Structure formats: C-alpha cells, structure tokens
C-alpha cells in the first residue's frame, strides 16, 4: 500500500478534533483526536499522532495510534510505528521496529487451529 496516492492529508502542524467519517483515503501527519469511521485507507505518518477509535478499510501506521482499531482490510504497523489498542482486522502485519500494545483478533476459520 505504500506508494499509493492518498487523497487527503492532515499536515504535520495541524490539530484536528472531532468525528471524521465518510469515504476517502487520508494521510495524517499531524494530530488527530476524536473518532474515525472512514471507508478508506488511513495512513499515519512518522510524525502523525492519532488518539481515536478507528473503523477503517485499512490502516498503515508509521507514527503513533492510540485506540481500538477495526479494519475490514489490513492493518500494518511499520518500522517506528506504535499502536496502543486492540486490533480487529482481516490481515495484520507488524514490521521490525513496529510496536503493538494490545490484542489481536483476526477473522478466519479457526477450525484447524483448535
């Protein structure tokens, strides 16, 4: 998903409070506090900080995210990225240097694992 052009951007010196919803991709390099319910990919840049419960299509974290995440697609924590909260997603990837504090729940047929 890296290299994919994201439509929206919250710049590094911008502070956004509130509830964000709709259908679009968004890159957050600034600070967001509130709630995100977006049908699209949210990317949190290295300097980005998100404190919010997230319901998204996909989430890519290079910065810091605090809140529970629900993703219909994949969640990836890149190097330097930090996620504090429970994650529910179809796919989860944590790269070297990425950190996750919380639980993981993935939707899959667990018949064989039991």
């Amino acid at each position, binding site marked *: 998903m890296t290299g994919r052009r994201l439509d929206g951007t919250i710049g590094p010196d911008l502070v956004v409070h509130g509830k964000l919803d709709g259908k679009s991709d*968004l890159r957050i390099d600034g600070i967001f506090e509130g709630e995100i319910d977006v049908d699209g990919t949210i990317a949190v840049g290295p300097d980005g900080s998100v404190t919010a419960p997230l319901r998204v299509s996909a989430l890519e974290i290079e910065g810091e995210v605090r809140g529970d995440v629900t993703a219909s697609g994949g969640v990836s924590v890149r190097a330097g990225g930090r996620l504090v909260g429970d994650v529910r997603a179809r796919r989860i990837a944590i790269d070297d240097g990425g950190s996750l504090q919380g639980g993981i729940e993935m939707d899959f047929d667990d018949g064989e694992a039991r």
Partner: protein
Amino acid sequence: MSVRTSLLPAGLTLVGSIEGKGDLVIAGTVEGPIEVDGDLLIEEGGVVRGDVRAASLVIKGQLGGDASAKVSLRVEPSATVVGDVAAPRVNIVEGARVRGRVTMTGEPVVPPAVRRRRRGPEPVPATASAPATAAPVTPPPSVSASEDHAPKARRRRRRGARKPPPPTIPTVPRQKARRKDRTFEPAP
C-alpha cells in the same frame, strides 16, 4: 501542493475542529471551526459550517459561518456564503451568493495607491475599484460621485470669489428692482 498543505478530501465529513499551521484545502465537509495560519481554500463542493480564520481565504464552495482573514478574502462565483466576512481586502466575484456583513478591517495598503494613480486621468476608475472593495456596487459609486462634486464646488466658489469686484455694476439692476418693489408697494 506543498508538504504543509493539508487536504480534507471530498467524501469525508469532520464534525469537530481544525487548527494549526500551514495551508488547508477543504473539499469535504467540516462542521466546526477552522483556524490556520496559512491559506485556507474551501473548494467547490466543499462545505464548512463554522467560523473560519486564516491568513488568506478563498471560498469556492459553501460556508455557513463567519470568515476572517488577516490578509485577504476572496469569494469566487461558485461560492455560497452565509455569514459575516472580514479582512483588510475583500473580493467578492460576481456570481457569488453572499448573505452577511462585509467588514474591511484596517486601512488597506494597495487600494489608496491605485486610486491616486487613477484619479489623475479620470475620476471614473474610482468605480473600477468597487469590485476590489466588495460586491455592493452602489456604495462605492456614491463615494466617487461625491468626490467628483467636491472639486467642482470648490471651483465655483473660487470663480465666485474672483468675480465679486465687478458686481458693482449688477448692483444697478438690484436698485431698480428695489425701486420697482417700493413703487409697487405704496401703489396698492
């Protein structure tokens, strides 16, 4: 688009506030106040319901709230603004729908220089500066009209002041008139 430019894309709705540094483009919907130290553009299709503050402000979409710019404020033809707008320079392009008070704060730096240059050749350009000031077309012309009349009145006064010496002659008909009055008065 520079790195400092932020964009709230079409399709996204924010119920809350945005504040900080850099330029900002709103193509989606924001319900709440916005304050940035850079340029703020409300794109065509963008909607903001809340007060907005920026260094310079361009509105192409819809704004329901008061707008305040430190430098300049421009309302494009596609825009709808319901609220007061305030800035040192306010441009409202023909076609824009605006309902609210327009306040041009402070003393504009550019407009006076333009007026001085244009006053020389013709007084007409004074009305030409009207679109630069605001949509209300009627007030500026009235100002220019009064400016036109003022010098004429001065000229008349000056001419009148120079003529008084000869009027010694006109005094004769005045005396005749008085005599006629006097002659008519006692008659009845």
